[in-house]
């Protein structure tokens, strides 16, 4: 390095008043810091691999199952005049099945870093985001680069650079206990995977009360979709009239005759993934008008699936 270059780096900047920054675009709150050091600008590596041009923009997309969640986007940009701009944005996404998208016009300069975090509690699987960098005229060309995507955890934001990109159904989802609809006498249980989500069914419990009308009942668990029935779990036992039985379908159990009467357990496939709209049905052959299922109790692992 020549003496002149060293002097460029080591010599403190002259104490002169920094030029006033250009008027910011609307909806772009930021603060600026006058530069305390100066840098050589010729023949050196750029400070970041992402340079934001005058027509570039960022789009934050979000999908969440949580109402009232606050999302925070924070950016640091080094402008050509040496000033570092810190930008902070707050958003309140609508819950599923809405797709939320906000576009931010960014100032010209090097993107030094940024993150997306949440205000409040957001369990894993609760909010999936994607931060895109778009190149070209405002509103014209589509995204040119994905800077961030993944679930936003409560205890640590997703950060750029060096993020780990994650697909929405990757990794563990959110554990949920759901109490379904109590169908009333003579009706069957039917639960549906809600729009914009994917479930892994871990267990399902319900009771079945049979009327005095004679005859055995056989309680089945069915899985259906728009193409029809695709999986049936038959019972290991028959339930008589005038009785109350307790049914559990769960991963990790075998179909067995219980030691305690009328407590029945049936198996579920280990990786039973169900997409939005899939039906979970409990019905009984031999069912009578006075027979009554309780509200089903489900344990599911849930992901956001845009």
């Amino acid at each position, binding site marked *: 390095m020549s003496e002149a270059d060293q002097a460029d780096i080591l010599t403190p900047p002259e104490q002169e008043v920094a030029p006033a920054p250009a008027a910011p675009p609307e909806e772009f709150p930021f603060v600026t810091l006058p530069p305390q050091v100066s840098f050589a600008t010729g023949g050196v590596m750029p400070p970041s691999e992402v340079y934001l041009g005058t027509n570039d923009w960022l789009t934050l997309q979000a999908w969440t199952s949580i109402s009232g969640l606050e999302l925070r986007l924070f950016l640091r940009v080094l402008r050509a005049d040496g000033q570092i701009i810190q930008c902070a944005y707050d958003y309140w996404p609508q819950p599923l099945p809405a797709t939320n*998208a906000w576009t931010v016009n960014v100032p010209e300069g090097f993107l030094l870093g940024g993150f997306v975090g949440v205000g409040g509690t957001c369990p894993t699987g609760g909010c999936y985001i994607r931060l895109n960098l778009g190149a070209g005229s405002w509103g014209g060309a589509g995204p040119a680069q994905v800077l961030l995507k993944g679930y936003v955890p409560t205890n640590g934001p997703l950060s750029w650079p060096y993020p780990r990109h994650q697909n929405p159904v990757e990794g563990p989802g959110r554990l949920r206990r759901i109490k379904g609809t109590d169908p009333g006498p003579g*009706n069957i249980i039917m639960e549906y995977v809600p729009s914009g989500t994917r479930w892994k069914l871990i267990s399902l419990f319900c009771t079945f009360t049979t009327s005095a009308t004679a005859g055995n009942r056989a309680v089945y668990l069915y899985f259906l979709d728009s193409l029809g029935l695709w999986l049936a779990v038959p019972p290991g036992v028959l339930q008589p009239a005038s009785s109350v039985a307790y049914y559990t379908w769960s991963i990790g159990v075998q179909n067995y005759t219980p030691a305690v009467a009328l407590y029945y357990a049936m198996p579920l496939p280990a990786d039973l993934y169900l997409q939005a709209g899939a039906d979970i049905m409990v019905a009984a052959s031999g069912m009578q008008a006075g027979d009554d299922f309780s509200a089903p109790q489900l344990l599911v692992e849930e992901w956001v699936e845009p």
Partner: protein
Amino acid sequence: MTTKLKCGTCGGTYQPIQADGLRYFHACPPVYDPVTKVSQERPDRRDENIIVDGASRSVGIRAEGKGAVAVEVAPEL
């Protein structure tokens, strides 16, 4: 706050807000014939799953059916 609703179409009761604070989207079960094991969609079926417009804004539920009425309301604190 309403803690339990009764569907006007199928008569099923459900909690619109679950214990974890998230919404539950009731949809009526079909009418099931235990002899033929054939299920048939219920007339005026209620389906509370959300439909969205082209801009992904919620614009309502899929099917209103015969509505739902509150059968259990949490006492005011």
